[in-house]
């Protein structure tokens, strides 16, 4: 079932349930839904509308909710002018997000597996430590991480982002996989041991295929975090050639005058891949998060 179907289903249940109930409670439900949608969708709406409005209408006093004229000039500026290398930023973001998610996924498959199946000294400490790291705000980590990067001479390199983003996303992916692996009956692995597979082979051939939907979910979360990250990138990167989209957008502010249309157009370009990816992978994710029985 996709998220869309889930939501539709939820509506049906609520509305059916309310058929016999009072008009007042039905109105209450609609108002609550409308407010939720308004608050979550309005910023997107503004972003989109701003990106296609002419500068005159953007900066005029009697600007309405629906603009009177449309234009693609902001997108032309973003793609056409040499002063905003959108391709470079896009590829930087993509490579950082992909490398981070792949590293985070591989490490967390092995890590989460060890949490659920292996007993080793310090295991409990590591498990707790990961939760604690996840609770820490990114800003508290910036300075210690920066010091480390200076020591290893990694400031202003993409490697600095690969490492720090992995540090940032790993607790979440570990936690997701850890919870899922716990629900896989250990007998499936034992059957594989008896069939002659080593532990690593068992992980690759038995655990990974069974966990595919959850791996997709973990990948998506990790990708999203890395793709949208701003703070670390703004501190650790100096050369414009290495900028990712979020800090690239920031440079627009100083490069142009009347920048809002351009900033919003760039924001749309930044947001689109995540939305497309989510819509495409959503069905795997929901399967993964609702999958109950694992045994054959």
């Amino acid at each position, binding site marked *: 079932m996709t998220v869309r179907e889930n939501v539709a289903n939820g509506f049906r249940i609520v509305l059916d349930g309310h058929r016999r109930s009072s008009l007042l409670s039905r109105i209450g439900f609609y108002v609550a839904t409308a407010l939720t949608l308004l608050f979550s969708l309005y910023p997107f709406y503004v972003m989109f509308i701003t990106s296609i409005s002419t500068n005159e209408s953007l900066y005029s006093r009697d600007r309405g909710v629906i603009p009177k004229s449309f234009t693609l000039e902001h997108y032309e500026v973003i793609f056409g002018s040499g002063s905003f290398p959108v391709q470079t930023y896009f590829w930087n973001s993509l490579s950082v997000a992909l490398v981070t998610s792949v590293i985070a996924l591989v490490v967390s498959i092995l890590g989460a597996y060890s949490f659920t199946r292996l007993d080793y000294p310090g295991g409990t400490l590591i498990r707790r430590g990961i939760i604690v790291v996840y609770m820490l705000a990114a800003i508290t980590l910036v300075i210690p991480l920066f010091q480390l990067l200076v020591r290893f001479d990694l400031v202003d390199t993409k490697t600095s982002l690969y490492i720090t983003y992995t540090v940032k996303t790993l607790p979440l992916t570990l936690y997701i996989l850890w919870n899922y692996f716990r629900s896989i009956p250990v007998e499936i692995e034992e059957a594989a041991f008896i*069939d002659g597979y080593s532990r690593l082979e068992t992980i690759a051939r038995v655990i990974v295929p069974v966990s595919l939907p959850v791996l997709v979910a973990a990948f998506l979360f990790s990708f999203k975090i890395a793709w949208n990250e701003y703070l670390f990138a703004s501190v650790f990167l100096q050369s414009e050639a290495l900028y990712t989209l979020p800090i690239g957008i920031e440079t627009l502010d100083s490069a142009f005058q009347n920048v809002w249309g351009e900033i919003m157009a760039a924001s749309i370009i930044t947001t689109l891949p995540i939305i497309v990816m989510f819509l495409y992978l959503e069905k795997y994710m929901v399967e993964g998060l609702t999958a109950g029985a694992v045994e*054959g």
Partner: protein
Amino acid sequence: MSELRLENVRKEFGSETAVSELSLTADGDLLVLVGPSGCGKSTTLRMIAGLEQPTDGKIFIDGEDVTRRSPSGRSIAMVFQNYALYRTMNVRKNIGYGLKHSSALSKSERIEKVEEIAEMFGISELLDREVSALSGGQKQRVALGRALVRDPDVFLLDEPLSSLDAKLRSQMRTELQRIQQELGVTTIYVTHDQKEAMTMSDRLAVMNDGELQQIGSPEATYVRPENRFVASFLGSPAMNFLDIDVERRNGHTRYLLDSHELVRVSDDTQAIDRPIQLGIRPEDLTLLDDPDDGATTGTVRHVEYQGNDSFVRLEVNGRIVTCVVPASVRPRQGDSVGLNFPPDQIHLFDMDAGDAIRSPSVDASDTRIETGPSTTEGNETDSRGANR
């Protein structure tokens, strides 16, 4: 046929002893490990499989010490309660998967082998189905096929039938027995179900608290339990236990319940000077409609009709005693009935240690035939006559 031998095997988990000093042998037969949950039977099986390492002791298969070998290096196959099939593969792949590693067979030989085993379990037409599309019984057949396709020296089953419904379970029991006999593979079967254990086993090993209590044929174990645990664990409804006093007089031994004589035996030469418990199986007790004076009597508290017989719960001197009677006998709640304790069916146990002091002396099959109600009633009358 391969011999499996366990020598003084012990397993500790931290400070907990799961299995202690276990020694047993199986050779081409079906040995059932039975006991309540937590008795160490599954741990024992997992040690034989190599999924757990014994803390101490040795495990031999065909005379070879396999104690430290990996699960795949000891020619065993195992079936789990929850099937543990690879759910991302179809039936054919599930069965054939292990063969790739465990054998040097060519691809065509492997295909042939898989089809052969599928036929044996009647799942040939399911070979190309996904396992998620199978019913519980079919999944269990696939799991059995996957295990046996490798021609293991020792076949291990951990409560393989407990996820199936009652009808399918008894059907699979018969089938498993048939296949085991056909292949003659040494088989260790773990269950907590004493009935399943009795019906399936060539030999029965009863375990409790990590210790082997008794091992032997199901008949011998049932009729001559070596201790109170085995006596109470096997049989449904369970054996009745009564705390009794023993009195010896004029060459007779009298077993007294609150100074009321339950049974008198003449042959008992053992001196008994410690607290004793008397045990008697519900089916060995007989009800007397018209008891003599001084006979043991009880009040019917509850009757459970079972179809072919009935379980009657009687209150005797404040204790509840269960008795199995033919369905034709229909006592009513509140009735007062006489109760006959046949002397040759009496078990005696040491109250503290629980060891059997006296067991029915005759062979199981003989006992069943000899113990007609008329005979025992006759005995009863005789002994009472002598008593007065």
